[in-house]
């Protein structure tokens, strides 16, 4: 399957390349991705849509170095992702994740949640300073010491966005970040996400069912039964 989608390459080179990627589950009974070729360039905003079970999350997991393909290869910044060590390094240093359910650590305060990706690499004072700055960027400076269990859905997702940006990622992967929010809050979160992305110049890959969001994307990848089938 060749690469398809709306819009073209933008930026200064390939960030992620999927080459003939196939991923199966349950001993081959379920084919999540079937021979996918896809190249993402630096600074792009890529929307991924498709029905449930079409392979969107699997695609995100492979681009995010959280999973390895059964066939084909995933190349990140020119290097194939082929080992657990490489996967851990890329996730820690080059990728930011925004999950649908925000996935904040409930026992940590807002700023501490933002610090989590930096814990292995920076001393406490440096992490704290960076986390507070990023919370300021997403409009939550005043909630830095708040218990995340007491935050609204929109606030939690903004904390998650700050966390995704804290390691200056080259790639931000967002899996339906507005899926659990009302439309007004969802729009606010998207604005924050775009503003943040522009600040760090990262590529954003966003899985969504919201076609309005897709309209602003540089590329729109549509998946069906594990294959890229183009735009709706």
């Amino acid at each position: 399957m060749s690469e398809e989608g709306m819009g073209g390459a933008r930026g200064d080179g390939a960030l992620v390349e999927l080459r003939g990627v196939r991923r199966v589950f349950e001993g081959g009974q379920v084919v999540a991705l079937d021979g996918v070729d896809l190249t993402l360039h630096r600074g792009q905003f890529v929307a991924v849509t498709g029905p449930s079970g079409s392979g969107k999350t699997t695609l995100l997991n492979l681009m995010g170095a959280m999973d390895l393909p059964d066939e084909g290869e995933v190349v990140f910044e020119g290097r194939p992702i082929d080992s657990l060590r490489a996967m851990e390094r890329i996730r820690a240093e080059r990728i930011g994740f925004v999950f649908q359910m925000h996935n904040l650590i409930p026992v940590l305060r807002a700023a501490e949640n933002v610090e989590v990706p930096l814990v292995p690499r920076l001393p406490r004072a440096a992490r704290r300073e960076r986390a507070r700055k990023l919370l300021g960027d997403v409009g939550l400076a005043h909630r830095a010491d708040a218990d995340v269990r007491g935050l609204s859905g929109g606030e939690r997702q903004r904390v998650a966005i700050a966390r995704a940006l804290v390691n200056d990622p080259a790639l931000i992967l967002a899996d339906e970040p507005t899926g659990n929010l009302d439309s007004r809050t969802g729009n606010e979160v998207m604005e924050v996400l775009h503003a943040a992305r522009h600040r760090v110049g990262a590529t954003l890959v966003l899985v969504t069912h919201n076609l309005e969001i897709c309209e602003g994307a540089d590329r729109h990848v549509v998946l069906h039964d594990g294959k890229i089938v183009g735009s709706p």
Partner: protein
Amino acid sequence: MYRVPCPGLTYVWRNLLQRKVRTGLSMLGVSVAVAGVVALISVSQGLRSSFDDYMEASGASIVVFSGEAADLVFSRVTLDDIAAIRAIDGVDSVSRVHFSAFRPGRTAGKAPALPVVFLFGRYPEERIMNKYRSFLADGRLFEKPTEIVASRFIADTLGWKVGAKVAIYGAEYEVVGLFDSDVPWENGGVIIHADVLGKQLGKTDSYTLLFIYTAEAATERVRGAIEAALPHLRAVPPRDFTNAFTDQLKLVDDFIALVTVIAVVIGVLGVLNTMMMSVAERTREIGTLRALGWSRGRILRTVLVEGLLLSGIGGAIGLVLGVLGTEALVALWSKAYLVATYLPSTFVKGALVAVLVGVSAALYPAYRAANLRPVEALRYE
């Protein structure tokens, strides 16, 4: 690149606080295990120290007993042995002693007030009796086979007074004096004429052990001469007496080791259960941490530190509980028989038990957590 060596301690600590009851119960399990170990070792050490103190308080230079006797009761130093020892150049005097014990009879249908009373067989004219002159609290030391001197604790407990007639093994004796020893273990006993006790023990031609008095400069030479001339006997400095009875003490040590193993197993099961549940409940959270770049090693260390922190705090509480519990036990129950000695090594052993529990119990949950695949962990509901 800078590497932070330990996991986020804030995260670890708050996870423990998150489930207070479960964490508290697990800590309690570790505390009880460590407290039990501390109490046993302290009492065992107290017994050794008390025995050593008792031997040293004799003022003797050497203690002689049967080399092959597995228990003091079976030690036999014969009259021929004594004659040979007395003939050794440098021996100033020899004190012959017997040891035994009796159980006070029931009074008015009630159980005995004491489980056991030690009997120290002595000769009034021998040097070993000198130390009791300074301990004497009331009356006088005994002079005849029909007289005894009891510790004040025994007398108070059994209602004896100076001048009272008391029965021991069917014979009647007059209490002529009371003493207060500075050795707790000795306060559980009565001094009786050695011939009387020898007859009761069936040892009319031998003694349980001898206290040998020599000039300090001659002690080693005399000790060597005794063991050379009488190889069936052991001649040791009083301080080394307890160590010389390794067979008996080994049993105590084996018992403590067994209880320690049981304590560790109980502690491990408690902490293991807590850690397994904690990891299972946080599967999705661990997946998030993995997705955010925490390595398997860091997840492993995080869960291990959590287990260690849990058992470490439990262990610290256990050390305190062990001392308080032992002191309460000694104060409320024993007074004379039980005495605890707290050595730094006892606390080190208690702390090691806690660490062992923490590492053993957290290792498997940590391994499980570290090997969760982030993709699957994030899907976990």
